[in-house]
């Protein structure tokens, strides 16, 4: 099997799973919705106050929702045996992992991006800010999944699961959080978000270059 065929097969399988198991994308969206709706209860319902925290809450919510989808990447495959097949394949593991992450980013990223501007209405954010926030989330989700894939790969055979994933991944996502929420904040303050978007793009490219290799090494360590 050629590399292209193998990558295509991995990608198609992931997309098919995503289309057939509705809970894979519906649960993160519902989780995202619930997180976003919890904050007004805690801080009060005045729209001026909500406007100030809205961007941060929505961005962190999207970040947590995509983090909760990380076990999907390798854990289920390890249980049903398809991970073994991927490891035994003669094609480079990093490329296959990249195909998986791409498929998950497209599916989950699209779902979260569509949900973001809707949830922005909760927080009385103007439309241009909501749009920028959606763009930020669209750029951030792949970066987060790429970084998270390393931790997910390491934790395939470890105790600790979701909490440990959060402990490992969340500190590394701080740059993405700063510039992702920063871009929307700029628009809210009537400034240009170009610098923040460019940096987010740079993080995505860097993660794209390094993370699949690290995740492949991690998977080899944990399934050794």
């Amino acid at each position: 099997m050629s590399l292209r065929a193998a990558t295509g097969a991995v990608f198609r399988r992931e997309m098919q799973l995503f289309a057939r198991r509705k809970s894979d994308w519906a649960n993160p969206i519902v989780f995202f919705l619930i997180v976003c709706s919890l904050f007004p209860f805690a801080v009060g319902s005045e729209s001026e106050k909500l406007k100030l925290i809205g961007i941060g809450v929505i961005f962190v919510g999207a970040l947590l929702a995509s983090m909760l989808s990380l076990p999907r990447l390798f854990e289920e495959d390890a249980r049903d045996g398809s991970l073994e097949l991927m490891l035994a394949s003669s094609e480079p593991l990093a490329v296959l992992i990249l195909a998986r992450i791409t498929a998950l980013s497209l599916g989950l990223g699209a779902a979260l991006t569509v949900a973001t501007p809707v949830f922005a209405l909760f927080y009385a954010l103007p439309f241009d800010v909501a749009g920028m926030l959606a763009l930020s989330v669209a750029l951030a989700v792949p970066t987060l999944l790429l970084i998270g894939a390393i931790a997910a790969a390491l934790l395939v055979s470890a105790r600790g699961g979701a909490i440990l994933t959060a402990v490992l991944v969340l500190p590394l996502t701080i740059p993405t959080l700063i510039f992702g929420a920063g871009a929307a904040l700029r628009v809210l303050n009537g400034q240009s978000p170009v610098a923040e978007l460019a940096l987010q793009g740079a993080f995505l490219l860097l993660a794209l270059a390094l993370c699949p290799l690290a995740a492949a090494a991690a998977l080899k360590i944990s399934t050794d």
Partner: protein
Amino acid sequence: MARTEQQSNDKFAGRWFWRYAAPAAFYPLAGKIEKIGWVLAVVLAAIGLYMGFFVAPTDATQGEVYRVIFIHVPAAWMTMVIYLAMAFWAGTGLVLGTRLSFMMSHALAPTGAIMAVVALWTGSLWGRPTWGTYWVWDARITSTLILFFLYVGYMALSAAFDDKKKGDRASALIALVGAINVPIIYFSVKWWTTLHQGSSVRPGSSSMATTMLWAMLIMTFAFWAYCVAAAMHRLRTQIIEREAGAAWLDGATK
């Protein structure tokens, strides 16, 4: 076990440095380094604290409060240095497959985390009288906090595997990922906000009184010696734990 140690020692005969990659060979040396480290730490800390608290002049703007600097700054430096050392030994372990390197980075991690806590704690005690608040979301404070998270993640991951070797390699990988991310995080946070006072120690042009500078440098070496001694102690404990049952160990620990 004892036989393989002997073999690896023979193989590297003549190259004294590599000889110490074997736990059996390094164990007694670690003991010596540990003793020297404790002595140096106590002596230097006594001199440094005396100079810092009694000899160094009162600060013109901050008064006596600034004296926390003699603990705060060395701890903050050690937080960063130890992370680099930890990542270095993790990388060495992954490349060469030497188990002593992994033990070395495990031995360093708790000391690094303690240094981060000391730096943050003394920093907030210093911040209250000078800035009027215990905590500021400033670039250096925030990156020390994140460094603390990375230490915790490293330790949690290495403890999460039943198979110690797997835990070694997995946590080594995450230490390297962290090391690549530290500068990115630092500059992101710096861009995000900054309020911290400028760095007071620069080669060539220092804005501090000479006695203050000396006291701080001596305290830095004291911290350094403490960290080396603590790491060596933990390393020896780990060697005993992991090599339990090896023939050489019975003789070495008697």
